[in-house]
């Protein structure tokens, strides 16, 4: 098989071998079905997403710009709030966001970084433009999958990688390690804090711990005393100070004494150590206010506001019914738009107007009229399909790309990404919990 000017036949012919290695390393993710936890192998499709060097340079610049602006926004929101005072973002989009945490007011995260690891979801439109669909600034997962897929595909088909010049993506662990070292700043050990084996991304937690050399900490391993976080040893007197926690536990469960008190997976009083500046949390707390569906609309405005630059990356065309002119447009074009609930509080998720009956459409209209602030609307983007292997042939399916941006002292973009695809030919949803799979993402070094 020959794609563009890329030969991948040797790789796609050897899928059995690839899958054997995937099984050997237990490349899994967990799903809850009917309340029961099940782990399954994450289906891998060996046809890579290929991004040309030029495209990549563009994406890289755009991603860095976007994440820088988002980090500046987070600092501003938890300090002076100039962006509200200057009327760029209405305050209610901040204060009624589920992700806004008053506890983070005036707290200075180490180095001023909030989103150390940002997962930016993009799609490539049929018009050849890339569009950002979502920013994930809390605990984005997925980088481990292309990492391990690459180490396997290189083993199985060395020829493919000597014929194509693909940027090595196995350096993600180095990016992560360097960033964690910077955040730790010599204060102690660095840990990856996992909620445990029954988390859907547990494979990733343990794999990244192994590859970075960080200690994998479970609930109960860490405790706070004297304003410091410690990792406790077998011997009661034995403890090691922790300087950096790459935590894979969400904000509300991280500290049962500061937030959700029913949390059994948190570190009691870790918020206190964080406030005192004695431990770096990766990612920082309170980032949810910046990756909220309502805030997404304002990200291009943030770029202009904080960096005084034109945004390099496009948002999908988005409307906020909260604003008068958008309100009129949305109500008039409901049947053509995608509607998303800002807080997901009603559990409506993503609604395609074109799939609704006239009655349902009217119902939706009433809900928007009742609470316009709760909704965003987007144009349906016709995105490029990618080939996947099915049976003995190839079929085209929807796919997105999650790019990973790592920010320590500097902001760096990982030269790869997680490409997720949907198996279902009619589905636009590429969520891995809904039966999709993943692909490696190649950044070509040659033009």
């Amino acid at each position, binding site marked *: 098989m020959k794609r563009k000017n890329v030969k991948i036949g040797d790789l796609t012919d050897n899928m059995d071998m690839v899958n054997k290695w995937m099984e050997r390393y237990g490349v899994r993710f967990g799903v809850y079905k009917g309340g029961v936890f099940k782990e399954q192998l994450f289906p891998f499709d060996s046809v890579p997403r290929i991004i040309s060097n030029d495209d990549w340079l563009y994406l890289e610049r755009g991603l860095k710009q976007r994440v820088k602006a988002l980090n500046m926004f987070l600092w501003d929101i938890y300090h002076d709030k100039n962006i509200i005072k200057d009327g760029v973002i209405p*305050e*209610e989009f901040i*204060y*009624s966001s589920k992700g806004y*945490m*008053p*506890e*983070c*007011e005036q707290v200075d995260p180490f180095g001023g970084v909030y989103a150390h690891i940002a997962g930016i979801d993009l799609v490539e439109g049929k018009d050849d433009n890339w569009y950002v669909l979502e920013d994930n600034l809390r605990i984005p997962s997925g980088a481990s999958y292309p990492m391990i897929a690459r180490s396997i595909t290189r083993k199985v088909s060395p020829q493919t990688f000597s014929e194509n010049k693909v940027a090595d993506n196995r350096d993600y662990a180095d990016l992560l390690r360097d960033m964690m070292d910077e955040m730790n700043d010599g204060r102690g050990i660095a840990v990856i804090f996992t909620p445990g084996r029954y988390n859907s991304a547990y494979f990733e937690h343990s794999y990244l711990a192994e590859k970075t050399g960080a200690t994998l900490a479970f609930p109960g391993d860490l*405790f*706070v*005393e*004297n*304003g410091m976080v410690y990792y406790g040893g077998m011997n009661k007197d034995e403890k090691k100070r922790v300087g950096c926690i790459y935590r894979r536990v969400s904000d509300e469960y991280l500290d*049962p*004494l*500061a937030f959700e*008190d029913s949390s059994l997976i948190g570190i*009691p*009083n870790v918020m*206190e150590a964080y*406030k005192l500046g004695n431990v770096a949390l990766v990612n920082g707390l309170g980032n949810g206010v910046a990756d909220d569906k309502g805030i997404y609309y304002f990200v291009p405005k943030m770029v202009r506001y904080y960096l005084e630059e034109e945004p390099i990356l496009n948002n999908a065309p988005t409307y906020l019914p909260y604003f008068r002119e958008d309100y009129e447009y949305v109500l008039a074009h409901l049947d053509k738009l995608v509607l998303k609930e800002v807080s997901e509080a009603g559990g409506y998720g993503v609604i395609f107007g074109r799939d609704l009956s006239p009655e349902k459409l009217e119902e939706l209209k009433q809900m928007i009229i009742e609470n316009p602030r709760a909704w965003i609307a987007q144009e349906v983007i016709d995105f490029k399909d990618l080939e996947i292997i099915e049976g003995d042939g190839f079929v085209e399916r929807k796919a997105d790309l999650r790019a990973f941006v790592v920010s320590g002292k500097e902001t760096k973009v990982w030269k790869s990404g997680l490409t997720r695809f949907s198996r279902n030919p009619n589905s636009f949803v590429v969520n891995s919990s809904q039966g999709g799979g993943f692909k490696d993402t190649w950044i070509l070094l040659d033009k």
Partner: protein
Amino acid sequence: MRQYLFTYQTFVRFTNPVVNHHFRLRCQPMKSESQRVEEDALVVSTHSWLQAGHDAFGNRTLVGCYLLPHLSFAFASSGIVSLTGEVCGHSSGNDSLFRYSTKLTTPTAELREVYVPDGSNRQKAEYICDYVHHLLSYRQEVTNSSTSVGEVMSLRQGVCQDFAHVMISLCRLNGIPARYVCGMMVGEGQTHAWVEVFDGRFWIGLDPTNAVAAGYGYVKLSHGRDASDCSVCKGVFGGNTCQDTMVSVSVFEI
């Protein structure tokens, strides 16, 4: 200006020893222009670390831990405060925070329909305070600390916390910043809850449970968006045990 002597104490007994006990307390009187703390003291039974600080809302906090096995935990906060009796406090700088509903104070459709006559924030809030007082009847043990406004509205009953939540919900619906207050009151043997509303310059205390202004006799411990921001004592520990908790509160005018 009137002076009050207050005591807040908690005693917890465990049936089996507990370890790795971490806690966070908000049991000391707030310092403000309307509430001057003349003297206060705090004792905590067993701890290997105890640190004073403030939370996001400016409430006084104490965090700490005791890791070794123990069978009881107790603390007492007491002191003397002077109240101006004027029901006011200045803007806290971040008043907008109290304009938006929270999980516990999400308004019901019924509350959205409530008619509030036009007037200043203060007048509207006083109207709402009275309205809520008559809307609900006071009854213990039908609600708990995590009962939402929705549940209270269907029960039409509750305790001071529930009265406060419904009032907050209505105030916010009507554009008035409102916050939850946890404190103590003369003649009340447990903590009390009331509401503060922002009139544009000052915060004003109103008590919907008793339909009065929260002036003299109200000793304030903490405020927040709703009750979940104001818990007096939170703790976690390891061990397989049952616990028996005794709380006693007293406020006397001196």
